């Protein structure tokens, strides 16, 4: 019987010829990730593990300060310092302080720390992002991460795979974000719980690396353990530019077994918006423009859409214009590299001239941390991945999830707007 891409990666890391869904395995990990929040708890657990004298491999751990930095208060500074001290003590090679990294999931691929066929676990649910590169990657809690720090292995239950087949081409104003919102809306927020999502189809072959990142990132929004794309020439070129490390490209066998196959036709897909308060509450943009939905804040950023490609789209729509007078636009570039590139391309000046507040790279407002937290009764349209009650601040605020283009168009209109009209105006 054939194996899926996910099963092959798991089998190899467990030293087994084959695995099947439901099987419990001990798998070696290629990389263990934590941020200052998950690390703070993990380090405490790690120190209490008898026999754990040091981390399993100081070069296979990545620690990224991104959630509450630059520290928003003394308590946040304490957690940031706790991780920094641990990194120093254990001589961790890949430690990224604020100003040197950015959002963990943006930084790791940029730094060549993610390659096809690898197995990565992280103390953050969006660790599934690295499936964009043909890796098996999944999020875990701090105790599991502490165990991985010590052992360099994790126990995993092999997930059954759900195959998603995307046919057709995205029309103008439609992006990977829209396709993924549609996918989460179709599967439901627990539709892929304990499952692997495998993204396939002609649309996927055409998709940029950033587009694949956006889609793999939100696999968790359907409850999935991991989301994965087969690595192709584009992936290999991207990774080889960033690392000399050898890696193994795997692909699903022709007779691999899938629990379900779901086809999504993107030809006729409109831009999509997830309404409050669930990522599965997805509607076509026309449902959001019928009655004007006035917006108080537009947020551009996060590990879903904080990439240079995203900022280019936003800048193309905002260039030479001013954002609506009754709202604010908060932008967090995903990483220092994205930030630098945006500066080089003139994107930062375009954004600032349009009236946007540009923050330093990091998670910022995405999880209601700081730098753009919402108040009671406020409505935000955001390029992020979650819109649960209270996700971006007040439990009485509303978050709508959309693509960077929809967010930029909304910033000009002062209400949720169809990006296709805005793109027409700029001839993009």
């Amino acid at each position, binding site marked *: 019987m054939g194996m899926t891409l996910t099963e092959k990666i798991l089998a190899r890391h467990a030293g087994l010829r084959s695995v099947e869904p439901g099987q419990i395995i001990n798998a070696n990990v290629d990389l263990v990730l934590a941020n200052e929040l998950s690390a*703070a708890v993990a380090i405490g657990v790690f120190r209490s593990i008898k026999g754990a004298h040091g981390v399993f491999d100081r070069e296979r751990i990545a620690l990224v300060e991104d959630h509450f930095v630059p520290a928003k208060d003394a308590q946040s500074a304490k957690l940031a310092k706790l991780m920094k001290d641990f990194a120093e003590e254990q001589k961790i090679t890949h430690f990224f302080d604020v100003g040197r990294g950015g959002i963990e999931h943006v930084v790791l691929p940029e730094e060549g720390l993610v390659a096809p066929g690898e197995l990565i676990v992280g103390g*953050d649910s969006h660790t599934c992002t690295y499936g964009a590169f043909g890796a098996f990657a999944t999020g875990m809690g701090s*105790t599991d991460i502490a165990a991985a720090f010590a052992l360099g292995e994790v126990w995993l239950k092999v997930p059954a795979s759900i195959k998603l087949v995307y046919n057709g081409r995205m029309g103008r104003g439609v992006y990977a974000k829209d396709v993924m919102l549609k996918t989460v809306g179709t599967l439901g927020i627990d539709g892929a*719980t304990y499952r692997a999502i495998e993204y396939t189809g002609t649309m996927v072959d055409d998709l940029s690396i950033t587009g694949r990142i956006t889609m793999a990132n939100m696999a968790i929004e359907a409850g999935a353990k991991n989301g994965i794309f087969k690595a192709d020439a584009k992936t290999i070129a991207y990774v080889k530019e960033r690392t000399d490390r050898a890696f193994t490209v795997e692909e699903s066998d022709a007779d691999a077994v899938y629990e379900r196959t779901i086809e999504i036709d993107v030809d006729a897909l409109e831009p999509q918006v997830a309404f409050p308060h*669930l990522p599965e509450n997805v509607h076509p943009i026309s449902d959001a423009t019928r009655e004007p939905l006035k917006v108080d804040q537009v947020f551009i950023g996060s590990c879903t859409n904080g990439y240079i490609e995203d900022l280019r789209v936003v800048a193309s729509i905002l260039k030479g214009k001013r954002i609506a007078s009754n709202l604010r636009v908060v932008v967090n570039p995903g990483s220092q590299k994205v930030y630098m590139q945006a500066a080089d391309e003139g994107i930062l000046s375009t954004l600032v001239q349009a009236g946007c507040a540009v923050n330093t790279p990091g998670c910022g407002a995405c999880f*209601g941390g700081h730098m753009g937290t919402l108040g009671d009764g406020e409505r935000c349209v955001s390029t992020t991945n979650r819109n649960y009650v209270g996700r971006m*601040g007040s439990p009485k605020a509303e978050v709508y999830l959309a693509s960077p283009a929809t967010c930029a168009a909304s910033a000009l209109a002062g209400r949720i707007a169809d990006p296709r009209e805005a793109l027409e105006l700029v001839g993009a």
Partner: protein
Amino acid sequence: MEAELRGKAHRYGKNVDTDVIIPGKYCNIIDPVELGKHALEGLDPEFSKAVRAGDVIVAETNFGCGSSREVAPIAIKGAGVSAVVAKSFARIFYRNALNIGLPIFESEEAVDGIASGDEVTIEPATGTIRNVTKGTSYRAAAFPPFMQQLIDAGGLQPYVERRLAERA
């Protein structure tokens, strides 16, 4: 394994997510008792005042969906909750709860048969859930054998210590 758990039920709906269990702004807290003061704040601001040691959270499907924050089960435990009974749990929350020693039980019938305020007892060893108020009794789904081994060993940490000792 622990003795019988006993307390009042606090009943919630489906998809109780980690953002309402412990909002992001509190995720820079590590102390379980401090976290417990904000448990479920996003869903039920009165919860931390109403909860008494031993009480049980009862919820519909997909409990704990969203982020991997281990402070979510820690906050619930820190608030004094002795167990969570749900129709199903989100994957990361399930792992985290077992890792930190927050007892969780899956049972559709128990959830349907328990109302807020009912007095509930749970026998962890057998997975027997009793609604003392109504005089009904239910059985939780058994843990998969590997999970049961982890639980019997006292959680993930002793398991890791054993693996390390095997290698030494």
